[in-house]
Every structure is written in structure tokens, then in C-alpha cells.
């Protein structure tokens, strides 16, 4: 099945990306893709890396509190609340953020209403920041879920022992919990990275500016110019970036195995 639905289309895509109009081999499509969309490629990498890092931090914070929190009510509420974005598709997230982050959107209304900012100072966050916010909001619960599960499977005895010896919860988190759940965190972050790389709906709906994510350019090449060659070239570049993330993870995982 992997052969039929992944490898075969991948090979066909590669063939189309390298085939010239006359049927020969050419790099021209890659050159064109690089010339027109170089900035967008860098932008895509930048946004996904930033989002992944933020997702990691948010996930650590929430999962850490769920594991180490001492107020049972707060923990219960958080546990119930944090999972909601999991069930919301990216396109719905895009639409929600469009209403929330606009210049006269809900966020600005709350900030102005509570007196935190002046009405004239209200900004529209519908640019690269909107994309990052949408991605973090949507993907953090997923990584948190993985992480909380991993943290819950740690031996409580070590945590209690450290507490008895006077460690603060933050110290507990950094020194004892995180090192042991590092593997799960890496898995979650890499999966999030690859997922965010493939999202079209969020940048299309939230960021009309340039630069934008590479998925928008791929859709544009196909829909407006019927230019499958450059679109496939862009897809292969995107695959390379995703492969890079996977390679980093595998290197890290095998290093741990070697040292374990």
C-alpha cells in the first residue's frame, strides 16, 4: 500500500519535476522555483521551526503542570480544556483565527475593552504571526497529549524523592522529568513540523501578504498556470525539508540508543 499510494506518486512527481518540454532531463523547473520562491521557502522553514519550538514550550508547560500541579481542580480543568483544538481541522482553525485576529476581531476587542491598549493601537495579526498562532494553537495539544502520557508513565517515586529533598517543581521538570521524556517530545515535534509544512488552508486564509508558505505557491502554480512541473519541483523541495527534520530526529534517536 505504501508502494502504491506513496512511492509511486512520489516517483511520478519526481519525473514531472525533472522533465523538460521535449522530454529530456532538466533542472530548469528547479531553477525557476528557486528564482521565484526562494524567499517563500526560507519563510516556510522559519515559520515551521518557530512554531515547532513554541509548540514544544507550550506542550512542556501544560504537560508539566498536569504532572506536577498541586491544585487538583486546576489540573482537572486544564486536562479537560487543552484537548479541544485537537478535534478542529486546520481550515476551521484558519477561519476562527481570521475572526479572532483581525483588526476589529475578538482579540482586539478584549484588549481594548479591558483597557490594555488604545483603540488606535489595535493591530491586525493576520500575517506571519497569525500563521504561527494558528499552528501553535492547533498542534500543541497533540504534542501535549503525547508528552503528558510519557510523563505519567514515569515512576512517581523519583519525583517524590526529589521533592522531599527540596527540589522546586521547575527543577523537577527540567532535571528529572524532561530528560526522560525527551524522546517522546522529539517525536511529537518532528510530527508537528512535518504536518505544518503541508498545511495550505491556514496560510491561504490568514496571510495574504508576501512572503507566504510554499504550499500556497504550489496551489497557485497548479491552479492559475497549470504549471505542474514547477509545482512538483516545489513539492520535492518541501519533501527535502521534511526529510531534513526526520534525519535530525533519527540521528538524535540513534545517538541516544548508542549511548543507552
Amino acid at each position, binding site marked *: 500500500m505504501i508502494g502504491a499510494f506513496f512511492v509511486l506518486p512520489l516517483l511520478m512527481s519526481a519525473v514531472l519535476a525533472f522533465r523538460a518540454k521535449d522530454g529530456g532531463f532538466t533542472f530548469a523547473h528547479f531553477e525557476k522555483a528557486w528564482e*521565484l520562491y526562494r*524567499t517563500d521557502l526560507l519563510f516556510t522553514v522559519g515559520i515551521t521551526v518557530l512554531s515547532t519550538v513554541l509548540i514544544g514550550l507550550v506542550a512542556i508547560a501544560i504537560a508539566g503542570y498536569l504532572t506536577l500541579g498541586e491544585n487538583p481542580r486546576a489540573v482537572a480543568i486544564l486536562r479537560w480544556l487543552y484537548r479541544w483544538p485537537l478535534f478542529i481541522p486546520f481550515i476551521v482553525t484558519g477561519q476562527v483565527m481570521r475572526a479572532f485576529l483581525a483588526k476589529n476581531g475578538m482579540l482586539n476587542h478584549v484588549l481594548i475593552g479591558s483597557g490594555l491598549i488604545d483603540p488606535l493601537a489595535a493591530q491586525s495579526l493576520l500575517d506571519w504571526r497569525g500563521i504561527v498562532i494558528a499552528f501553535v494553537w492547533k498542534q500543541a495539544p497533540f504534542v501535549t497529549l503525547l508528552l503528558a502520557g510519557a510523563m505519567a508513565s514515569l515512576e512517581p517515586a523519583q519525583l517524590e524523592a526529589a521533592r522531599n529533598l527540596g527540589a522546586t517543581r521547575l527543577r523537577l521538570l527540567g532535571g528529572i522529568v524532561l530528560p526522560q521524556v525527551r524522546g517522546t517530545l522529539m517525536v511529537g515535534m518532528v510530527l508537528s513540523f512535518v504536518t505544518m509544512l503541508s498545511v495550505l488552508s491556514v496560510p491561504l486564509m490568514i496571510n495574504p*501578504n508576501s512572503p507566504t508558505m510554499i504550499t*500556497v505557491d504550489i496551489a497557485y502554480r497548479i491552479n492559475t*498556470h497549470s504549471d505542474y512541473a514547477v509545482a512538483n519541483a516545489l513539492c520535492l523541495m518541501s519533501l527535502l525539508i521534511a526529510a531534513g527534520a526526520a534525519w535530525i530526529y533519527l540521528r538524535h534517536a540513534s545517538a541516544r540508543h548508542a549511548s543507552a
Partner: protein
Amino acid sequence: MRYKSLLMAGAVAAVMAVSGAPLAQTLNVVSAGDQNMVDYVNNYLAPKFEAMNPGVKVRAVGTGPGDSGSQKIYEKLQAQQKAGSAAWDTDVAVVHQRGAATMVKENLLLAYRNDIASGKLVSRDSAKNALGANVDGFVLPMFHSQIAFAYNPDLVKVPPKSFAELTEWVKKNPKQFGYNGVKGGMSGVGFVMGWVGANAGLGDKLEKGPYDPAQKAAIDKSLASLKDFNQFVVMTPGNAGTLDMLNRGEIAMGPVWVDMFYTWQADGKLNPKVKLALPSPGLPGQPMYYVVPAKAANAALAKKFIDFAASPEVQAQGIVKQFNWYPGIDPQYVQAKLTPAEWNKLFVDISPSDLAKYGRPFPLSDYFTDIVEGYERVVLK
């Protein structure tokens, strides 16, 4: 005995043939463009046509807005042509100019315009020429749409009358003008075409030709000034996005489709105070065309449908009155079917003479591609 029963069978068959027993026929209409196009066929044209032709069912589907919608129709017809199908499953298609030009070039369409009565009611150049390609006889304009600047008169006391005045205006009023680039929708593409038309010094060579690839340099130069212009403006997410932001007061002016503008105002989705203006030397508009695929399964019925849809009554009540488009057939036939008030509604802000002077077609296909690619190369870097 056998002879007699044969005679009886023959008589029955003859009677049935003469009485024209209604066979259930489905007319498949595929339309590019926004959802309002599909709604127009399903909610307005279909019930009327089905009432006139019992036993016929009209079914319309949409393929999406912009040239990509027409692209999908083209790919489907091309696939059926390559596969050698005897009868294609699309009877009527509504496509943009670029799509129609490509389809005519590849012999995917039937020449039908001279076979129907409404075909004689069109004399505009746009019925014969699609961005430089000769499509005479293969297409009939469904409507003519136009891009214009919509502006809020409370914030824009004197609307700019030219692109030069617009450039001055945005410098004094930063982030108050918004358009949707070339990737968000055709109103933005039209604005860019208008900009190049005003600034590249090519006059109407862009629209009349001949195509000269050496002009790319002049086009790129005009796009460089557009890059500067963009620093003072807001990018909107699409055709609807521009109208949306205008309505919310986030921008004061932006290019919009005139028909979308009027429809939104009629639906209460747009501030009724907002007005339209056409700058010099002009902004483009485009017709969308009724076409019949070369091997359509129900070609005769398709021609009847288009004849009906392009008739003066339907153009008056449907196209102009209900959907606020400029008519596809020549205006004088349509004007006769509307009250002066209804007719003038279309020309409240933009007079017929302004429309004639500043409403232009889109540039030739090759220049169109050069401009759009140039935008990516020069402005988006």
C-alpha cells in the same frame, strides 16, 4: 396475420414518434466562477427552462472561481478528447476568456453562435476575440463584468481619477488602500493589469497586440514602481476579502468586481454609502462565455438553452436586474426590456461614457502571463 401485426406495430411507432413522447433528458451545465454563477443557473435559469421544455432537467455544477475553474473544465474536455469518447458529458460550459481561447485552439468546442437567434444580438469585439485569440462563432458572452475602485466617501473625499493620483493618495493615507495581489482573486489581478497599462507606456498594445516578448523589460519596470506602491497598501485575502475589509472600515478603498459590489449592497453585506469610481486609463473587465463542447451529448438542447439564456428578456431580468452584471448581448436590446430606473441602477456611479472610456479588456494572453509572472519576480521578492 403477420403482415397485419407488423402494420400495427409500425403505426404505433409512428404515432409515438409524431406525438414526441417526452424522454427524460438531463442538460449538464458546468460553470467556472464564483458560487453565484452556479446559483444563477440552478435557481433562475433552470426552473424557467424546465418549464418551457417538459421532461428536461437542468443540472449545474461549479468548478471554482478564477481561471483555475476554467482550467478544470478544459482539462476534463481535453481528457475526453484524448480518450476518444463519442459523447462528452458536459453540454454547456461557462468559462473565462483564457479558458475559451485554449479550448478553441484545441478544437474542443462546437461552433454554434450563428445557429441560434440570440447569436445575432452580439456585435461587441469580446464575442469574437478572447485576449487575442479568434473565438468567433464558438462563444456567446453571458455577461460583462467590470473591476472598479470601491471607496468610502466619508474617508475618501475626492476619489483619485488616475493611477498617478492614487499613488499620491496612498502616500498621504498609508494602509487605507487594499487589494488582493495576483494570487487572491481576479480583482487584484485586474488592478495589476491596470497599473501596468497606466505605467508601462505600452498604451493599448497590451490589449491589441502584437505580442512582443521584448516588452518584458518595460513591464518589469512598471512593476518595480508597483513594489514601491505596495509599501503603502494592505494586502487583502481575496475578492470578498477586499469588500469585507471595506465594510469593516479597515480600508477606505480597493478594487472590486462591480457585480459583487452591487450584490453585496443589495444583500446588506456592504455599507450602502460605499461608491464606485473608474480611474484613467482604465481597469479591465471580462466577459464569461457560454460554450458548447464539440461532442456534447445533448448539443441541440444545449444550443436551445444558450439561446434562451442570451435572450433579451433573460438578460434583462436575470443578468442585469437580479445579478447586477452588465449584459452579455448588446445593451440596446436589453435596455428596452427594463424600466429606466432598473437600467440606470448599474450606472449610478459609473456612467456609460466612463465605462466605454475606462472599461478595458484584459491584456493578450501572453502579456497577461508576462505581467503575472513579472509580479512574482519583481514585486513579491
